[in-house]
């Protein structure tokens, strides 16, 4: 899935990526908006900035996100 700025997403599962920290488990089920997609190299592996409702803005791996 290629995410775009302003797209609505859901954090639907844990990521296996090393960037996933235990507190991010709290985000599962949250809805939000992509605020900064992989601006560097359009890389599916890049961490992307997501603003989650009630949870703030975080950089997350893309494999834990799905578009709404």
């Amino acid at each position: 899935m290629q995410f775009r700025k302003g797209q609505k997403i859901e954090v639907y599962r844990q990521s296996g990526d090393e960037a996933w920290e235990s507190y991010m488990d709290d985000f599962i089920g949250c809805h939000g908006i992509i605020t900064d997609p992989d601006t560097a190299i359009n890389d599916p592996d890049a961490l992307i900035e997501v603003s989650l409702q009630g949870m703030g803005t975080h950089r997350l791996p893309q494999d834990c996100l799905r578009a709404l």
Partner: protein
Amino acid sequence: MADNVCPVHGTIVYLSRKLASGELTEPRTIRISEEILKLLEEISNGHAGEDHLDAVHTRVREFFEHSANPEGLKTGTYLKGILENHGSVLESHIATGNCASMDCVRLAPSPCQMACPAGIDVPTYLSLIADGRDAEAIEVIRRDNPLPWVCGLVCTRPCEMMCVRARIDSPVSIKFLKAFAAERAMSQALYINPPQKPLNGRKVCVVGAGPAGLSAAYYLALMGYTVRILESLPVPGGMLMVGIPRYRLPREVIDREVAMIQELGVEIVYNTVFGKDITLESLKKEGFGAFFLAIGAHKSYQLGLEGEAQYKDKGVIDSVMFLKNVALGQRTVPGNRVVVIGGGNVAIDAARTCLRLGAKEVTIAYRRTRSEMPADIEEVEHAEEEGVNFAFLTIPTAIAGDGDRVTGLNCLRGELVKKQDSDRLYPVPVEGSDYILETDAVISAIGQFVDTDGMDAFQDIQWTRRGTIEVSRASMETAHGGVFAAGDAVTGPATVIEAIGGGKRAAEAIDRYFNGMPQPRIPSVPVRYRREKPLEMPASTKMVLKRPEMAMLNIDRRRTTFQQAELGYTENMVREEARRCLRCDICRRCGKCVEICRDKMGIDALQFGYMDFDNPGETDFRKTAENCIACGACVANCPNDAITMEDRNDERLLMLCGTVINRQKLVRCQSCGTVIGPVKYLEYISKKTGGMKTVTQKARLCNSCARTHTAGFNVGTHPVGQTK
């Protein structure tokens, strides 16, 4: 504290009031109270870790270690009582992240504030700007972001993406309003630093004077730390200065805001490379007890094309070096016909800079299509207006030259295809489609990475597979004790506001590190500092006001000079635009008002479609007046006093965060003159209590007069079943 108030929330209110009122004067008591307040705030919002409760207990005990201090004893006794009587509630907050009495969520910040990586209290400062109080607005912003002017010009504005107003028409222009307020406050000499705590004798070394480093230095200096920033460049700002062109961010803006930080005693040592010009050992000897690494991501990825190495500096340039040289004063045009490879903001910046240096033709070659470009859409449009060409679906294969200089870029046409098990589109070359893009300069702008030179001094630091410094995101702490990091060095090339937020988080974590406080489990949530009174305006004005267009410098000057391209809003535009804010810090869009009006009262006057995040419906505040009876059921059920009702000058006003959504003439009791409500409301009541009409002879009476006038009626004069 009232019995029905959550003890966590109640204690936060208690400590906040004590600290704000100046009631506490003894430094130790203030320090312990501030630390407990910080811990309780994290417990309140569900971000506390396992050590938080122990840390609160430890600090409460500290009050009693100095029995000669009555202030401390009084505060300590109160807090000890809370811990003894309500300890289980605190434990439950930590374990579940929930507040059973819902008191703690009352402080939930607005979506724009939550979206901001630095957590700026947007609704409060917009409200202040709308009211013409620009300096106060800047004071609010600088609690979370020491560079409001810079961000007002270059922020990627995640706040605007989450802006609830966008669900009605378009988001509030938060970014430009911030720039206006900062410029106005600076020009009127009202942009001032907040009071600083006395020096605490502790020293922190910051490596890098970019947004993360400056942000950390600012907050550490305010907390009383002695801060020295080491900067390898001859100028401050990092990528702000050497990555962002002057037509987007004038140098004076950076200089003025950096000067404000230096005014706090922050020392910036320029032209100094950590690990080369100065070592970790020498800094430790000088007494630096913590280090903050904000080294950025200043190295460009190579294109990996044939001819790239051969023609390096003979027409092949990397974008980071190119923009840096221009920022430092070099004004040499790289070529007449320039090709920039990449699709991000850096590619756009490089292309627009080439035009300003005098390049006759500039083309951005991008492997995908316009809709996949990661660059900001406004930046792309500005580039097009200025005459930058775009070659989409262009896959460079080699750099051609005549031996001395680049002459062309060999390319293939591409097409986007989906790979198996992926819905992402990948560019694939079309066979036989090769062609040459004639050019005499190729600028690569395909991304940057962290330069690790000098970092081997911190042997315990871990690096991620992405080549960035590994930290705990909640505290920005590395695996090397006393060493913290943030900014692009941690996130990879990211945004200015993310770096500023990281720097602020790191400053708090460094302070905790020195004071032996546990670090939070989750990155801290934004804090609301105050609840500014909403500005009153008619519903029609709220709906009619539209986001203003940004005036731009004329196109010829944009193509030839580095003058700021965006000219900013006029004062009138700014005040009106700020008034479009829906004040989501007050209305949390829980929808209770809509439900009560529709389901309980059966009126359905509130068409607030914007309240639904996933499926927003139609919103028109003007429509409320059509059906609303001003009964006040919504007001009574609003958990945050967002909807209010007020009787003023013979009228009843119903207001949602200051927007007057209904205004009805009041009727008075025909007997005593007491206000009994608007006609619509009385008719509604009359329908529900039809049997009373005959008794009151259709007179509009208040309850008291109605009772008096009907006192003569009883079952003797009006037997049951005979009332007409």
